[in-house]
């Protein structure tokens, strides 16, 4: 039996796709007992999203679903049915935490708004993760990861790099579903703060997480420049941090960040003290920051003569922060990540053995661990409904026939 940091914490998850499931995954992977409630039939919509092995879609083989739902018990439940709602409330009574990412309107319609849930279980922490939060003029707006990135100002701040015509390029969303993941992560932090409060007071509360805010939070420096100095952050600035250069190599690209006198000196040495670096202007760190484009071009003259690996080794030898622009292939095969045992192989009943990203942190006393792979749809109906809530197998059969599970 695993002792995780969150052993003993009981969580019901009524969410799908990414943000809610990632929040619940963080809890589950550190030992919380998480019961994930899916709609009978299709289940979590992430089951329909790739990557799939060999591109053959299968509801039990979605890479996204498999990753996001490790360590969870999976049940099916139709809360629109009266019996389903009764069962759901029994789960709510059992739980310390409910994680959900449905719209406020939807939860209200179902009679699962916070006030109603609080009546069922005053101890319950309810974490609601939505695009715009529970209040405010946009709270009923429809959104997805793309929208979140743009309305948070994050897309606008994406530096316009590596394109021919800056004027033509729109602000850029983050990679993959970074926004939804960030919302889930922030939700998990909010959840834990409420759980810690719950330990003292014995009472629950509503954790209201807005994806717009979770992402806007990251613009803190740039928006602070505006609110304090009245200076807008110009989009057409080139490289993100002025000290960061994305430079071409023979076989790809590398990122070099020489912030600070020490690293700048090392960078100059690494390039063999080229003449341009001796120019008086470049001795001034302020000037360097204002002329990052020029620096990038000049460093590019050095890097383009070398392979990415040569640049990497030169940087290591000279203590310059730099890495090649790797793809998933190099990351998965990285000696560092191998030494850290970051990737873990998990065996799944249907999908088989696959390598997954593992622990985002290493806890010495209560390490992250996977004790079970993502659940098949309804896999733990018996274990949860009979084992935990006291229903009989005949009850389950009736519920299945009624479309309740």
């Amino acid at each position: 039996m695993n002792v995780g940091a969150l052993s003993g914490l009981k969580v019901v998850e009524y969410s799908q796709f990414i943000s809610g499931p990632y929040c619940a995954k963080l809890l589950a992977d550190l030992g919380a007992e998480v019961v994930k409630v899916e709609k009978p039939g299709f289940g979590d919509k992430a089951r329909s999203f790739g990557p799939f092995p060999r591109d053959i879609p299968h509801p039990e083989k979605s890479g996204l679903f498999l990753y996001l739902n490790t360590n969870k018990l999976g049940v099916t439940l139709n809360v629109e049915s009266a019996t389903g709602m009764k069962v759901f409330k029994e789960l709510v009574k059992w739980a310390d935490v409910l994680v959900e990412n449905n719209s406020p309107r939807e939860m209200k319609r179902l009679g699962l708004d916070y006030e109603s849930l609080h009546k069922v279980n005053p101890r319950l922490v309810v974490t609601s993760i939505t695009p715009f939060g529970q209040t405010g003029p946009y709270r009923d707006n429809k959104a997805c990861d793309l929208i979140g990135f743009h309305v948070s100002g994050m897309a606008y701040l994406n530096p316009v790099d590596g394109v021919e015509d800056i004027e033509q390029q729109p602000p850029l969303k983050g990679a993959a579903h970074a926004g939804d993941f960030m919302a889930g992560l922030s939700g998990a932090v909010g959840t834990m703060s409420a759980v810690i409060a719950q330990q003292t007071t014995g009472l629950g509360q509503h954790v209201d997480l807005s994806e717009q805010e979770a992402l806007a939070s990251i613009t803190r420096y740039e928006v602070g420049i505006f609110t304090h100095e009245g200076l807008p952050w110009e989009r057409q600035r080139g490289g993100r941090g002025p000290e960061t250069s994305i430079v071409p190599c023979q076989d790809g690209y590398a990122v070099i960040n020489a912030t600070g006198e020490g690293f700048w000196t090392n960078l100059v040495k690494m390039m063999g003290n080229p003449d341009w670096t001796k120019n008086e202007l470049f001795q001034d760190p302020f000037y360097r920051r204002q002329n990052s484009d020029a620096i990038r071009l000049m460093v590019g003259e050095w890097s383009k003569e070398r392979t990415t690996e040569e640049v990497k080794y030169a940087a290591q030898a000279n203590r310059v922060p730099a890495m090649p622009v790797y793809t998933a292939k190099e990351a998965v095969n990285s000696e560092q990540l191998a030494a850290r045992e970051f990737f873990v192989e998990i065996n799944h009943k249907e999908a088989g053995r696959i390598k997954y990203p593992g622990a985002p942190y290493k806890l010495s006393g209560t390490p992250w661990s996977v004790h079970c792979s993502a659940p098949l749809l309804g896999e733990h109906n018996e274990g949860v409904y009979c084992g935990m809530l006291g229903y009989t197998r005949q009850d389950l059969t009736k519920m299945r026939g009624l479309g309740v599970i």
Partner: protein
Amino acid sequence: MQKLPLDGARVVDFTAIWHGPHLSQWLGVMGAEIIKIESSLHPDITRSRFVFGKERAGLNLSVDFAALNYGKKDVTLNMAQPKARELAREIVKISDIVADNFGGGVMERWGLGYPDLKKLKPDIIVYSGSGYGRTGPYKDLPAFASVVEAFTGLHSITGHVGGEPAQMASHAWDDLVAAQHGVFAILAALYHRSKTGEGQYIDLSMSEAGAAFLAEPIMDYTMNGRVAGRVGNRDNIMAPHGCYRCRGQDKWVAIAVSNEEEWIAFCKAIGNPEWTKEERFGNELSRWKNQEKLDKLIGEWTINYDHYEVMERLQKAGIMAGASLDMEELAHDPHLKERDFFVEMEHPEMGRLSLPGLPWRLSNTPKGNYQCPPLLGEHNDYVFGELLGLSKEEVRQLKEEKVIY
């Protein structure tokens, strides 16, 4: 109203720059007493980051510092001096958490590695953040977020279609993704300690915390050996899904359509132009395959309207749309305003500050500890006098000896 969740907890905060301070700032806002340790010889470098050409004369005027260091108290300790390290140890004895994000070995050199700290306080929770982790062949490599992001494969999948690799959004993405994961891990460790009395050591690698968001490209590689490309604002499934130019200078709107119903509503909302009836736009799959042309045609419509107008009109019709906000628009966003996302603070030297606050709300908890960013060494008398019980004379002497310095 309840107290703040971390009321009563104390953090010895050795963190600096972005990742660490972001983490300790959230702990501070949630009620922990943060004792930030700096030195007149080595103030946090963000104190001296100047802005757009305006050099800052003092160490208490930087927006960069302010955005990441509110909610904290501040002392100066010249850690080169043995007496200073002794004082640091005394603070540890009355604290719950010690945090750092130094490059390798600094805490150990000061006699403040985990085994040392555990002797001082057996249940201490120690957090140590770094670019690649505290173990492995890369453990001593200098790191910044941009470089770590390149290493985990983020740059390779960020950027416009056909363009070069690009930075992910603003400031320091992996710093802040790692910081949030770090706060979560610390709260989980606090939860565990409350049940068992046990502390532990948390080793967080920014590359691993960042890679936790990259399950999709990573698993496509581990399952199918495939390496993802850059897709700009596009999506693997939805079309239209992009960012379109609107009326005005550099104004854009993001739009996503996820099914046939939304497509029909979208066409209606934009006045059912003839081109929407073309066969190649007649079903979901075909729209995806023809999205380049589709995007062009949509752009010819949006260009005539203000981006807020497009967002409102499409949202009314039930379509996912969001104005792509710049920093000024973000600061004035009516939704964020209503939710009190920006927090106002009065700073003795900077005057009024308006900065993003916590991205979640707890329903039965006070707003949060938003004490203004500290002046360098502002709380020396409080920490060494009141907390540690040194006399005024002793403190004066230590300042003279440049121990408290």
